[in-house]
């Protein structure tokens, strides 16, 4: 709401102020403005952070810093912690003390720090542990109109609810612990409109890979992305989370979707969602933070969803992807300044210019992560692999994103389907998304992975290789032993 000078007809001649809805505002600016605490002497804004999510990797030094300075956690009831990155996903290896003494030390640190500072903590015996970007939404902690920060770049995931959610470094984790605020500049906002209807076998993962391919891995630097259009409105919340999750891979620290009926239906009844008579008022508030119909943007990009095919990455950045029926691009098709990176990617991946990506053999299949480790991802993968077998020589893992996802999957009988097909069914955690727990690639192994980063060495072997794709495409790779077009392998749609 903006203050306007008005003329009061009841008191002739009197000037007064009244509140009218300021139109033309986008969600980013509305939410940002409501959270500004002060203008710092540097010109940056001091911004209130409504929800602070914490995990074991980026927080120990921050807790140590505030302890050293004799500070307290300012809003412990707005701070929630869990353990995800270092936790083994093999049930036998989760016994304490963990075999890896460094991981055990980190686990003890988060337990001790959260207890000492009165922070909510979801450990492995809580029934609520999981990847931080999976548990925030499923517990109803993540809500529209919030500012959400976490020492993790994939915090952009929570933007699916129409919140401003972004990753921060450890110094800022300390700032937020101590003050519930941080120093921020204002971003520009780019509206990305995805029109049409996705074909069978094409998922949110393919949409975001296509967006990053189009706009580049640094195309979003300085921007928040607002995702809109028919494809996005028709997405479930879990699909919106997959989409927003990878905003950061396009350089955009924030990606969001305006809250709508889908958002409210998802949140209703979740443990931390408003209850009873508060519910309707909350929904009204949430509607008010959505972008106005005539909102202005710094840039607008449109994409035709109907023409998208399933995507696969072929290189060492998430922008290096292609439709599954495509061929690895030639070095000369890139600008000169890009060519060195393209040569480096081809050499690292051991792929040739012009080579079809379909048919590239895989050693490992990983279905999980904060991008695609939710119940709908696992259900869809289970549906297609039911009755089929993982190709011989392929190691295939399914890792639920949280204990809640695990319980839901068990209730639906998914572990049995996966095990019968030859997949390993694991305990919740980040697993093979990154090299901090026992799940790792070995040597030059190549993995079909539903995670979000195909950087060199990302999956644990300094020379290991990653092909990013959707869960159903990963399932197709598992049963064929190579990159395959899921639309040909399974009966879809």
């Amino acid at each position: 709401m903006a203050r306007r000078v008005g003329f009061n007809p009841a008191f002739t001649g009197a000037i007064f102020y009244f509140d009218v809805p300021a139109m033309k505002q986008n969600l980013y600016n509305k939410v940002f403005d409501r959270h500004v605490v002060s203008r710092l002497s540097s010109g940056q804004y001091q911004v209130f952070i409504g929800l602070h999510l914490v995990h074991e990797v980026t927080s120990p030094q921050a807790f140590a810093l505030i302890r050293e300075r004799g500070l307290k956690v300012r809003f412990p009831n707005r701070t929630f912690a869990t353990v995800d990155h270092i936790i083994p996903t093999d049930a036998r290896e989760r016994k304490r003390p963990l075999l890896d003494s460094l991981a055990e030390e980190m686990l003890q640190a988060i337990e001790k720090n959260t207890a000492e500072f009165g922070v909510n903590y979801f450990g492995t015996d809580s029934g609520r542990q999981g990847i931080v970007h999976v548990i925030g939404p499923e517990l109803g902690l993540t809500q529209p109109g919030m500012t959400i920060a976490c020492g993790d770049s994939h915090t952009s995931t929570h933007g699916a609810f129409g919140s401003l959610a972004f990753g921060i470094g450890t110094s800022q984790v300390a700032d937020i612990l101590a003050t519930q605020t941080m120093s921020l500049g204002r971003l520009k906002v780019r509206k990305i409109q995805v029109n049409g209807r996705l074909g069978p076998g094409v998922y949110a993962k393919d949409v975001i890979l296509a967006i990053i391919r189009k706009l580049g891995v640094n195309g979003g630097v300085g921007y928040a992305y607002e995702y809109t259009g028919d494809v996005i409105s028709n997405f479930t919340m879990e699909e919106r989370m997959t989409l927003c999750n990878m905003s950061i891979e396009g350089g955009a620290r924030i990606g969001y979707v305006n809250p709508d009926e889908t958002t409210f239906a998802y949140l209703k009844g979740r443990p931390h969602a408003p209850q009873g008579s508060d519910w309707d008022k909350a929904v009204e508030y949430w509607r008010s933070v959505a972008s106005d119909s005539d909102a202005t943007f710094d840039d607008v990009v449109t994409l035709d969803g109907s023409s998208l095919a399933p995507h696969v990455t072929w290189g060492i950045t998430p922008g290096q992807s292609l439709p599954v029926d495509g061929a690895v691009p030639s070095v000369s098709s890139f600008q000169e300044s890009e060519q060195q990176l393209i040569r480096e990617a081809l050499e690292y991946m051991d792929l040739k210019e012009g080579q079809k990506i379909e048919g590239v053999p895989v050693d490992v299949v990983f279905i999980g992560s904060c991008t695609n480790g939710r119940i709908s991802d696992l259900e869809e993968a289970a549906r297609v692999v039911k009755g089929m077998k993982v190709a011989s020589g392929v190691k295939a893992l399914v890792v639920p994103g949280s204990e809640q996802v695990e319980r839901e999957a068990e209730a639906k009988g998914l572990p049995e389907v996966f095990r019968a097909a030859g997949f390993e069914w694991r305990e919740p955690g980040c697993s093979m998304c990154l090299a901090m727990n026992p799940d790792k690639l070995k040597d030059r192994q190549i993995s079909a992975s539903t995670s979000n980063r195909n950087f060199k060495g990302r999956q644990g072997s300094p020379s290991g290789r990653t092909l990013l794709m959707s869960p159903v495409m990963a399932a197709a790779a598992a049963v064929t032993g190579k990159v395959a077009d899921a639309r040909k392998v399974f009966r879809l749609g």
Partner: protein
Amino acid sequence: MTAASTIVSSVSGRVVSVRGNDIDTDRIIPARFLRCVTFDGLGEHAFEDDRRGLKAKGQTHSFDEAKYQGASILFVNKNFGCGSSREHAPQALMRWGIQAVVGESFAEIFFGNCVSLGIPCVTVDEAAIAKLMAAAEANSTASWTLDLEAQKISGPVSETATMPEGPRSQFLSGKWNPMSELLSHLAEVDSVGAALPYVSGRW
């Protein structure tokens, strides 16, 4: 992490270059070195896998070359520091000896993490970085100065090197670590919190 900020108006010293676009934080500090509860000892693992990979091919990463040891300014290309938000990346560079970074562009979270550590990241254009890298590689003993006040990097050659006004004034005023200033507004913090229905619980 330094609690007390000091004014950062210039950084002087020798230069080391790491060429390549889109160098991500997993490359700057591989995730296995994040299994720690302090930032101590990260410096020696900066670019560890890239260094090992080159060694295996009989080549040498610039961070391993004797002539670049002790360098305090890092030259890089586009989108440096993309990927993970790990502050371990700038911490590793800082503990190796880097006090300033000059490049074509930086990933946003990396840039912000560097601000919090008092490490200015300044931007130069593509033609300029090519000249700067060539000059630094031709003469590894040359001394360079990044002048944040004048927004200039000078050594054997000199080029304009810019930084957005907000963070630049943080460095020049010694307020790159904002915690003290944030702490001075706690009453306003509480009132902004109280006005937010999801914080106050009053919908």
